[in-house]
């Protein structure tokens, strides 16, 4: 449906916003572009929309190359972060404007706008102007303006970031329902990884103008390709411990800052390429850390002694912040775990949930 091949964006001849991105978005798919601010996700979306010139590479929508096609002829609709509603037009007119420009019959325009207004619960405000609406209603009008056009692709540029937390969750569900109902391809940009995880069929994680990984939410979470993705997806973030791999009786990971020693799958041998010692980073998610006397931990050998700096009780779980030497660690423990601030506890890591990253390239070992 939408195909990006080596798509590149350079501003002012030397600022590279997007380094040769490759992406294929299938018909009806909901793809989320996520990354920290300045990672190039918005530039990428704007190139797809035709609002930003493509420096090099190919962009196709359907089977047609659209690099030089005007935005209005790309058969896309876009929802902007600030909604970009025309302040001098009524809600009805805002939604009808694009259709009028396409010279649709008046009746057809009325029908489409009414349909959209019905779906979005805007029937009562059609004659109002944007400034008389609440944030959530404006957001809906912006979505309505996109859906009346019945485009092949919807583009969303951080559409929920101006809403308060509660409304954001509600609109998230509404957009998902809309997608289910209309089945239109959606490309959605956000910096919020929770939004990305909950909405996307697939997620494109970007950083510094490069695509780091394209995967389903589950794969992204459980099998991150590199340290950036591992650290970006998930909250609280994954713990990282620097250390080295050593060959001996099998391959062992030795933490630089504590006594922690972990047995590593033999497959890691391939990465050592004959070396005896290799600097690596161990990644472990907070929920894969347990008190070492917990029944889950039977037979696990990886233990680390930690002084607890802070305990946050969430009700259903607790988040424990601790340190061992200069290493900071976050663990999510069962709510009944008997730990408190300033305790010294022994924790263990779930062996099959550990990730190892090359210390230099930060790419994962699989």
């Amino acid at each position: 449906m939408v195909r990006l091949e080596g798509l590149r964006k350079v501003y002012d001849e030397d600022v590279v916003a997007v380094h040769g991105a490759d992406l294929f978005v299938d018909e009806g798919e909901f793809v989320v572009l996520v990354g920290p601010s300045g990672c190039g996700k918005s530039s990428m979306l704007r190139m797809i929309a035709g609002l930003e010139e493509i420096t090099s590479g190919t962009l196709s929508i359907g089977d047609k190359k659209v690099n030089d096609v005007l935005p209005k002829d790309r058969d896309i609709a876009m929802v902007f972060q600030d909604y970009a509603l025309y302040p001098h037009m009524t809600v009805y007119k805002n939604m009808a404007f694009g259709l009028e420009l396409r010279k649709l019959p008046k009746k057809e325009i009325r029908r489409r706008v009414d349909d959209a207004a019905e779906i979005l619960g805007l029937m009562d405000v059609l004659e109002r102007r944007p400034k008389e609406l609440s944030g959530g209603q404006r957001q809906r009008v912006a979505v309505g303006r996109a859906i009346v056009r019945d485009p092949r692709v919807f583009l969303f540029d951080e559409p929920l970031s101006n809403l308060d937390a509660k409304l954001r969750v509600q609109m998230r569900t509404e957009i998902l329902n809309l997608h289910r109902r209309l089945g239109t391809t959606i490309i959605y940009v956000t910096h919020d990884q929770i939004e990305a995880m909950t909405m996307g069929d697939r997620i494109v994680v970007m950083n510094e103008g490069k695509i780091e990984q394209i995967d389903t939410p589950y794969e992204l979470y459980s099998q991150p390709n590199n340290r950036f993705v591992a650290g970006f997806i998930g909250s609280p973030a994954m713990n990282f411990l620097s250390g080295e791999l050593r060959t001996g009786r099998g391959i062992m990971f030795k933490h630089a800052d504590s006594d922690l020693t972990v047995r590593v799958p033999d497959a890691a041998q391939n990465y050592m390429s004959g070396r005896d010692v290799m600097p690596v980073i161990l990644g472990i998610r907070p929920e894969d850390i347990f008190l070492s006397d917990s029944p889950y931990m039977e037979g696990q050998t990886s233990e680390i002694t930690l002084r607890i700096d802070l305990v946050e009780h969430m009700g259903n779980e607790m988040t424990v912040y601790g340190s061992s030497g200069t290493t900071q660690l976050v663990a999510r423990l069962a709510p009944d775990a008997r730990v408190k601030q300033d305790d010294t506890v022994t924790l263990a890591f779930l062996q099959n949930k550990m990730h190892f990253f090359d210390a230099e390239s930060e790419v994962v070992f699989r």
Partner: protein
Amino acid sequence: MKKITAYTALVVGALIFAYPFVWMLSASFKPEYEIGDMSLMASKWTFASYQLVFDTIPIFSAFLNSIIVSLAVTGAVLFFGSLAAYSLSKLKWRGRDTVFNLILFTMMVPFMVLLIPLYTLVVKFGWTDSLVGLIVPFMMNATALLILRQSFLTIPTSLLEAARIDGCSEWRILRQIVWPLSIPALITAGIIVLTANWNQALWPIMVIRDEALMTMPQMVLLFTVGGGAQARLGPQLAAGILLALPIVVIYLIFQRQFISSMASTGLKG
């Protein structure tokens, strides 16, 4: 107490500003021999001064010429000015800032410097003794462009992008999005240009010789200092009132937008 002081000061200021105009208005209706004193009242009111103006000069044709010229100039300035302002504020192109700075620079050049070259040009084009010679040289104006550009800059770019995706051409964006959202700035620029153009006397005196093509300021100027008024003050004041009246009326109509726009652009008139 503070308020009273402030209001007193304002009232005194307003009186100082308003008195000459009110006096001029009342004097234009006084008999000639009573104009000498500074009072606002007269022993009897008369139209004699106006009568003399209407009898001696073709003031109606001058009025019409002035209307044609000022409206044409104002319309052209707003049209071309907003095209340029749109390009200078919302489109990206190489050398844009340089061009804008050049335009700003032209604001620093006094009109007197341009007078001779402009006149030479108008003569070359054969536009002397025609309204075209009064209109064309003033169809673009840096002040108006600056006001419009500042106003256009406040329109969020995403609005224009949404319009582009909706299917607008740049020209239609200007017409259907930018203009409706810039009405105060258009009015401000319009009034400034209209006033300046309406009051212009020097240029018409150079370009127009034919009485039938003269504009109000030129006509009034020639009437008051050129002997038409027979050195009588009343008719001179009456002609002055007739000259100022349309601008006052326009200002009163658009006062609110004008002031709000002046306040928001932070520009002086």
